[in-house]
């Protein structure tokens, strides 16, 4: 399973649409995390989506994201957890423990997105950490 986080320094980037760094986290076993930093090649929405697809991303955790961009990504079968904030390690750990819905990980005013719009309709599609 490949998880991608749009990052700025060691935190989730505030706006996915303008973020330029991606951190891919992949795992084969519970303890083995492999982190691969990646640069977005373009700001163009379609090229961004293509890059996520080319890297076999299953789940994306990001900050604020426009509806259009989110629709493009979900249309490719990628599960999006939007409007998330925090340090990368704590986010990965929260995701692993299914605690991403906690208020501290949601951007102000966006809780309904953090675990609302982002998760709604994705039941059964959410990847559990193996």
């Amino acid at each position: 399973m490949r998880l991608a986080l749009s990052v700025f320094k060691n935190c989730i980037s505030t706006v996915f649409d303008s973020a330029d760094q991606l951190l891919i986290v992949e795992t084969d076993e519970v303890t083995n995390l492999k982190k691969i930093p990646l640069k977005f090649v373009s700001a163009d929405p379609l090229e961004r989506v293509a890059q996520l697809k080319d890297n076999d991303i299953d789940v994306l955790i990001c900050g604020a994201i426009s509806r259009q961009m989110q629709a493009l990504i979900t249309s490719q079968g990628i599960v999006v957890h939007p409007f998330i904030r925090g340090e990368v390690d704590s986010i990965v750990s929260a995701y692993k423990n299914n605690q991403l819905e906690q208020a501290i990980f949601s951007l102000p005013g966006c809780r309904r997105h953090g675990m609302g719009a982002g998760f709604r309709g994705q039941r059964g599609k959410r990847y559990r950490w193996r």
Partner: protein
Amino acid sequence: MKSIRPINSFSGNSGSDQNIILDSIADGVFTVDKDWRITSFNRAAEKITGVSRNEALGQLCKDVLKADICERNCCLRSTMKTGEQIINKKVYIINAEGRKLPISISTALLRNKNGKLLGAVETFRDISIEEDLRKVISQKYNFADIISKNHKMLQLFDMIPDIAAGGSTVLIEGESGTGKELIARALHNLSSRKKFPFVAVNCSAIPDTLLESELFGYKAGAFTDAKKDKPGRFKMAENGTLFLDEIGEVTPSMQVKLLRVLQEKTYEPLGGTQSIQHNVRIIAATNKNLEEMVKQERFREDLLYRINVFKIILPPLRERMEDIPLLIDHYVNRFNTLQKKNIEGIDEGAMSVLMSYQYPGNVRELANIIERAFILCKTGIIEKKHLPENLFASQTKESNAEGESLRDVEYKYLLNILKQNNWNCPRTARELGIHKSTLYRKIKSLGLQLP
């Protein structure tokens, strides 16, 4: 979390006075301390960002504003560093609803009476209407510009990125005024062809004898006065998209030529001897039922199959009445900006009339109705008297009861939408964007009988 510095520490005015002043400003205003934590946040800022004052206070400004420049080119950081104001810089934010809004921001330092630096202030203005008008002029639409919460339209929005990414021919079917060209432009602007031209041709506006030369161009000497080569629309749309509107109006002889162009991906300019390869994506549109026309032998079956690789059906406005308030709001904003007026909206009576009209001219007709109301309504709110007569005639005919109440309109609307959803309440509630218990309450209060 850092403690929040009350706004009255910035000057001698009391906090409540300051809040009243700030809340009366139409522009969003917030102040930050030296750690970039928000210390005050006015009402307009709440409206634009979708974040309430309580949620914003004490938070990092980047987490609240969510602008594209926050991380790399923060204006407040630049002002704090250089002391220089930034005025009217255009940036994009993502509001709490996920809408990408263009805003214009200005920043300045914030000092106390003794000149000690306390932080900075940022004012910002929503310029989405101006941007919207710019799009109207430049026609650079994408599907985020299509206003709808109708479930059929939302399903379509989900599909549009995939349709745009594929290069196949698309047929858009919909009544006049439903936004066929808007969808075609959105498909083009979302596709990899967006850097190349989008060329629109209305097939019914050009006589058949001219359509061939218009589409394929001609060579010098092809006919009298053809002194030099003229490129056709196919040539102009090379690597881009050709939008063939009103394809159902094309004559049988032209249908044969179009079929060949689509099959062979080549065309011959008038008077030319060599075929030219083209790389053009075709999007065709019609307000006719082409299958029916095929049955009547007025449209070639093979051409229909060639253009009907993917069919998009746009519902008429009367089948997405829930979009009317959204569209009215949109057009009121647009005409306020265009005509420099300050119309607040429309009253309940006028809304009731507009909700019970059938809109044969669809969204275009609704836009015209609002534009007409703007001529008659100088200020305040649009009322029934500002609406055209024919709307009332239709209402009387439809309801056979003059002065229909909002309750009657609600009853009819709900009945209609329940029928459309085969009396499935959860689905109807989803379509209306309300909770199903709210729908059941509404059904009960209106006295609707479910089968």
